[in-house]
C-alpha cells in the first residue's frame, strides 16, 4: 500500500517537472513573441530567437547523452552540422522542383512545409549517422568514448570541407572536386552553403522544442529511460540484471543525435549563409557548458542555461572578449564546487528540509 503511494507520488513529481518545462518554453515563447511584436526587442536580439531555440534543443538532446546516459559526447555539433546541411540540401531540392519557389516569401504554407521536410530529413540523416557512429563508439567507455566522439565531430567537419553539392538539370550531384561545380551550387566545400532561403520561424522552432521535450522526457520516464540510468549508475550491475547495455546506450545516443540534427536544420534555415566551421569543437563545448551549468541531467536547467548564455553575450557586447574565458572558469568552478565535500554538506544543510523528507521516504 505504502509502496503504491510512493510510486504514484514519484510519477507525479516526474510529470510535474515535465510540465514545468513545457510551461517555461511556452512562457518564453509568449514573452518574446509579445516583445518582438511590440518592437521592444532590438533587431539583433530578434535575430537570436531561432538560434536560442536551436541551442535549447541541442542542450536538451546532449543532456540525454551526458546526463541520462552518463557518456561524455564531444562531437554533438557534428550531428547538428549533418542536420543543418541535410536541411539546406532538402530545401534546395524542393525549391528547384517547385514552381511556387518564386513566391516563397509570401507563401507561408510552403515555407512551413519545406521547413518541416528539412527538419525531418535532418533528424533522419543525423539519426542514421548516430547509428553508424554509435556502433563503434558505444563499445568504449569514459574517456575513450569522449575522445572518439570528438574525433567523429572533426571527421564530419573535415568531410564537409571537401564536399561539393550542386543541382543541375539532371538532378542532385555530390562531388569531392570543386572544379566539377555546375548549375546551382548548394554546398561549396569550406565556403559552406551560401544561398539559403531563410524560412525558419520562431513559432515553428518552439513547436519543435516542445516535441523534443515530449520525446526526451517520456523516454527518460519510461522503462527504457530507467534502464539507461541504471546502466549509467552501475554498468556491471545493470548487465548482471539482464539489461542489454548496447541497445539502451544506442537508444539514448541515436535519439540525441537525431534531435541534434533537427536543431541543426532549424538553425541553418535561419541564415542565408552557413559554413561547416560553425559546427566545430567550440560549438560542442558551448553546448556542453549549457548542460553542465544547467545541472547535468536536469532538463529545466539546460533550457535556462542555453537561453541565458546565448542571449547574455549578445546584450553584453563589450564583454565579448572575455566570454569564453568566463565560460572556462565557470566550467571549472561548477565542477570543483559540485564535487567538493564541504559544499555538498553545505548544500545538504540548505536543503535540509527536503532532504530529510526524501530520507523519510526512503525509510518508508
Amino acid at each position: 500500500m505504502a509502496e503504491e503511494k510512493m510510486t504514484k507520488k514519484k510519477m507525479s513529481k516526474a510529470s510535474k517537472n515535465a510540465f514545468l518545462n513545457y510551461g517555461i518554453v511556452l512562457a518564453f515563447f509568449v514573452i518574446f513573441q509579445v516583445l518582438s511584436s511590440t518592437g521592444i526587442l532590438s533587431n539583433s536580439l530578434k535575430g537570436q530567437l531561432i538560434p536560442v531555440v536551436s541551442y535549447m534543443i541541442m542542450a536538451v538532446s546532449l543532456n540525454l547523452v551526458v546526463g541520462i546516459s552518463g557518456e561524455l559526447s564531444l562531437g554533438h555539433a557534428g550531428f547538428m552540422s549533418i542536420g543543418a546541411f541535410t536541411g539546406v540540401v532538402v530545401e534546395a531540392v524542393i525549391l528547384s522542383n517547385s514552381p511556387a519557389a518564386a513566391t516563397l516569401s509570401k507563401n507561408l504554407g510552403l515555407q512551413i512545409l519545406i521547413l518541416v521536410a528539412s527538419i525531418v530529413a535532418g533528424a533522419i540523416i543525423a539519426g542514421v549517422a548516430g547509428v553508424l557512429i554509435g556502433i563503434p563508439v558505444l563499445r568504449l567507455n569514459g574517456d575513450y568514448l569522449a575522445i572518439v566522439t570528438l574525433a567523429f565531430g572533426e571527421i564530419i567537419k573535415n568531410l564537409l570541407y571537401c564536399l561539393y553539392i550542386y543541382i543541375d538539370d539532371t538532378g542532385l550531384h555530390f562531388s569531392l572536386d570543386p572544379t566539377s561545380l555546375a548549375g546551382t551550387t548548394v554546398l561549396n566545400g569550406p565556403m559552406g552553403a551560401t544561398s539559403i532561403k531563410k524560412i525558419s520561424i520562431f513559432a515553428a522552432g518552439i513547436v519543435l522544442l516542445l516535441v523534443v521535450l515530449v520525446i526526451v522526457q517520456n523516454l527518460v520516464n519510461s522503462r527504457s529511460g530507467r534502464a539507461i540510468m541504471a546502466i549509467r549508475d552501475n554498468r556491471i550491475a545493470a548487465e548482471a540484471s539482464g539489461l542489454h547495455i548496447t541497445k539502451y546506450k544506442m537508444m539514448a545516443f541515436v535519439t540525441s543525435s537525431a534531435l541534434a540534427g533537427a536543431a541543426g536544420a532549424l538553425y541553418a534555415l535561419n541564415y542565408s549563409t552557413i559554413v561547416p566551421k560553425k559546427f566545430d569543437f567550440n560549438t560542442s563545448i558551448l553546448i556542453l557548458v549549457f548542460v553542465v551549468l544547467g545541472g547535468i541531467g536536469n532538463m529545466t536547467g539546460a533550457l535556462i542555461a542555453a537561453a541565458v548564455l546565448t542571449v547574455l553575450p549578445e546584450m553584453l557586447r563589450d564583454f565579448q572578449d572575455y566570454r569564453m574565458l568566463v565560460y572556462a572558469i565557470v566550467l571549472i568552478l561548477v565542477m570543483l564546487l559540485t564535487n567538493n565535500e564541504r559544499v555538498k554538506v553545505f548544500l545538504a544543510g540548505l536543503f535540509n528540509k527536503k532532504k530529510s523528507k526524501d530520507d523519510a521516504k526512503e525509510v518508508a
Partner: protein
Amino acid sequence: MLTYLINGISLGSVYAIIALGYTMVYGIAKMLNFAHGDVIMVGGYASFCTMTYLGWPPALAVLFSMVVCTILGIVVERLAYKPLRNATSLAVLITAIGVSYFLQNAALLIWTSNPKVFPDIFASIPPLVIGHAEVAADGTQSGGIVISATTLITILVNIAIMVGLTLFTSKTKMGKAMRAVSEDKGAATLMGINVDFTISMTFAIGSGLAAIAGVLLCTAYPNLVPTTGAMPGIKAFVAAVFGGIGSIPGAMLGGILLGVIEIIARALVPSVPSDIFVFAVLIIVLLVKPSGLLGKQIREKV
C-alpha cells in the same frame, strides 16, 4: 617517398613527445589531461616572447619555457585536478576541458589571435644532404635527400627524451615511485610513497616535455596562435592511445606511426584533409585492439 617518411618521423617525434605527457599522466592519475595540448602552446609563446622581445638566445629561451610549463603543469594539477581525485571521470574530464579552454582564451587575450611568426632557431645549422642533391631556384629538389636541421634535431631530441625517460622510470627512486603509483595507488601509499607529490612530479615532467615539443612544433610550423596546441594535442592523444596508453615506448611508437601516416596521407590524397585519416586510425585501433599496440590488457573488476 623517403623524404615523406623522414618528414613523417619528424612530425611523429613531436607527437611522440607530447604523447609522453598524456601517457604518463594517464598511467598515474588515470585522467585524460585535455589541457596538455595547450601547455604546448604556452611553451611556444614563452620561448617566442623571450627570444623576440627580450632577445634571449634560443637555448636559454627553451629552458625558460620549460620552467614556465613545469610550473604551469604543477599549478593546474594543484588547483583544478587535485580536488577531484575521487570524483567521477566525467567531472575530471569536463574540468580538464575547462582548463584547456581557459588557457586558450587567456592566450587569446594576452597575445591576440594574430599569428606570431616563430623564429627558426636552427637556421644556422646547414641541412643534411645524403647523396647528390640539387636544389633548383624554385625550391624543388632532384636526386638525393635533403633533411632540414629542424627535422633532424627533432628526431634526435625525441630519441634522447625516450632514452632518458626510460632510464628515469626504471632506475631512479622517483621513477620507481611513479610506476608503483600507477600500479596500485593504495599499496604505494602503504609503502610510504607520497602519492600527491608523485602525481605532481608526473605533471611537472609531462609539462616540461610539452614545452620542448612546443618549441620543436613551432620551429617546424612557425605560425603561433592560441589554438596552436589544440590539434597536435588531440593527435598526440590519438598517438598515445594508438601505442597503448600508459606505456612509454607505446607513446613513442604510436606518435611516429601517426606522423608518418599523416604526412603520407597528405602527399597521396591532398584533396582530403589528413586529419580524417588520423582520426580514422584512432577509431580502427580502438575497435580492433582497445589497449593499443603495446598496451596492457586491463581486466575489469566488479
